[in-house]
């Protein structure tokens, strides 16, 4: 595991040295003396970069990168497949919630969930696409900071958030062009991600804090979960402020698009 390896490496490289010693004092060659750590192992990263640059299929690039990395570190093809398969199966939980939600989300959409969400937002005069998204980010941040993980792209953004934001924009600007819808939806996905990432670190029983705590425990460094959670707050506030700026920019952008479309349709009034 990287974890253990990283920890061993830290201990090994620093062992016996006083911690206050400047890092440059001990020889640089040491990194390349560590057995089995040659630079060729970075080949996987280059495969990924090249694959993205050539716009190859991402799945193919990922698999090729894994195979290349495995081969240069001395694994057989079969062993690589075995390791890849084991990890693929172990991570099925990442795909499962999306798959489980799609039938009910699809069913509700078939019976007009998105249309109903749009109708709901029309009753609120103050709603704009940007304000709806900002509100969502705030709710998402606060709830996940309290340990409540609601939301998600399949469960909330597609069936509820995107239609609400689109509905609010329709109230303000009338019919939306394809580009406008695309912009709103992309920002809806961003609202979910920002709310999710930058609220999570404030809750102490959540993955990232537990991971950090476990990491320091394995190095025998005393760090309290509470202080790590506390130091997540400034960035959470900054993330919300940035989201406020972005959603405001979204609203302005939509207004400009709508004005341009109106101007094109009716040149005299423009």
């Amino acid at each position, binding site marked *: 595991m990287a*974890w253990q390896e990283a920890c061993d490496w*830290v201990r090994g490289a620093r062992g016996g040295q006083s911690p206050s010693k400047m890092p440059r004092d001990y020889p640089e060659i040491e990194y390349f003396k560590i057995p089995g750590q040659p630079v060729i192992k970075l080949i996987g990263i280059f495969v990924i970069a090249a694959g993205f640059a050539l716009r190859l299929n991402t799945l*193919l690039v990922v698999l090729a990168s894994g195979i290349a990395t495995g081969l240069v570190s001395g694994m057989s093809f079969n062993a690589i497949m075995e390791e890849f*398969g084991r990890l693929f199966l172990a991570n099925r939980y990442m795909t499962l919630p999306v*798959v489980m939600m799609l039938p009910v989300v699809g069913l509700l959409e078939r019976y007009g969930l998105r249309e109903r969400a749009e109708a709901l937002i029309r009753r609120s005069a103050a709603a704009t696409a940007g304000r709806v998204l900002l509100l969502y980010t705030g709710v998402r941040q606060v709830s996940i900071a309290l340990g409540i993980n609601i939301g998600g792209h399949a469960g909330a953004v597609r069936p509820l958030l995107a239609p609400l934001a689109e509905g609010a924009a329709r109230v303000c600007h009338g019919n939306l062009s394809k580009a406008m819808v695309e912009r709103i939806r992309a920002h809806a996905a961003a609202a979910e991600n920002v709310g999710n990432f930058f609220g999570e670190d404030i809750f102490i029983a959540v993955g990232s804090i537990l991971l950090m705590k476990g990491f320091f425990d394995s190095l025998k460094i005393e760090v309290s979960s509470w202080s790590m959670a506390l130091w997540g707050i400034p960035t959470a506030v900054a993330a919300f402020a940035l989201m406020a700026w972005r959603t405001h920019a979204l609203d302005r952008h939509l207004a400009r698009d709508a004005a341009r479309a109106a101007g094109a349709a009716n040149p005299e009034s423009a």
Partner: protein
Amino acid sequence: MSLLSLNSFYVLGGAFMLATAVRVASDKGHARRWSSALFWGLLGVSFVFGGSMPPAAAGYLVLGMTILAASGRVGLSRERSTGREERLESAERLGDRLFWPALMIPTTAIVGSLFFARIRWHGVSLVDSTNLSVTSVCIGAVLALGVGLRLTRAPVREAVGEGSRLVQAVGWALILPQALAALGGLFARAGVGTVVAGLVERALPTQHPFVAVAAYCLGMMLFTICLGNAFAAFAVITGGIGVPLIVHAHGGNPAIMAAVGMLSGFCGTLLTPMAANFNLVPVMLLELQDKNAVIRAQLPIGLTLFAFNLLLMEFCVYRF
């Protein structure tokens, strides 16, 4: 002993994918009918039998799915849905009751993570307490489906059909998060991070405390961009750069370093297609034309927030 483990939902989800495979295979007008059906079939098999299949077999299943996807042989079948008029009419008829099932998923997830683990009798618990949150979401989805079917009086077939329409819209990107997680594991096993950390420390004048902070934050972001996962980057970069340089050499505060460092990694997650479940799956789910639309929307936030994190750490890590 527990009644509902994650594995029962893997089987259920897998069965849904197998049903998708059957629906694709029975669509006679589908240009890439058999190869598409094979893709969903293989994925279904990896879910249904994943608990007992040898890992190497799963590896070759992934290889097969990758070849099908990369050669462009996975396409959409024609699942017919309702038109807008029809949907407006039923939205009018069903009213706000349509929201109930949609809200049941998060409600069950909250209640589930709080209480499900405590429900047990005679040593048999209702829910396996490992992976409780994922299991709770799945239970919520099943309950919501039940309520939704009752509400709309639709047959189960209709829900499966709509579900397969959506899952096919996501397409092969659905398994990208799993494949990337597997790649991260392989990188870890090969020791890629240790090499990167060594190179960074060699290349930069890290005897200056502020350079150490910059190297650590940048390392977290860049490595997250490469791996698509801040957690994987954390162990590597904090072990290789953060702890030896910031904490040991310069006496920085480990709590501030770790918290802000992880969040610098999250800024990287906003910017990378490698974080497929956050940046690519939604593109497919929301049916966007531009594959990078979500990353593009997040770019200003990710970069500004990274600069904020960098300054925050520079000012605080050696002071508190």
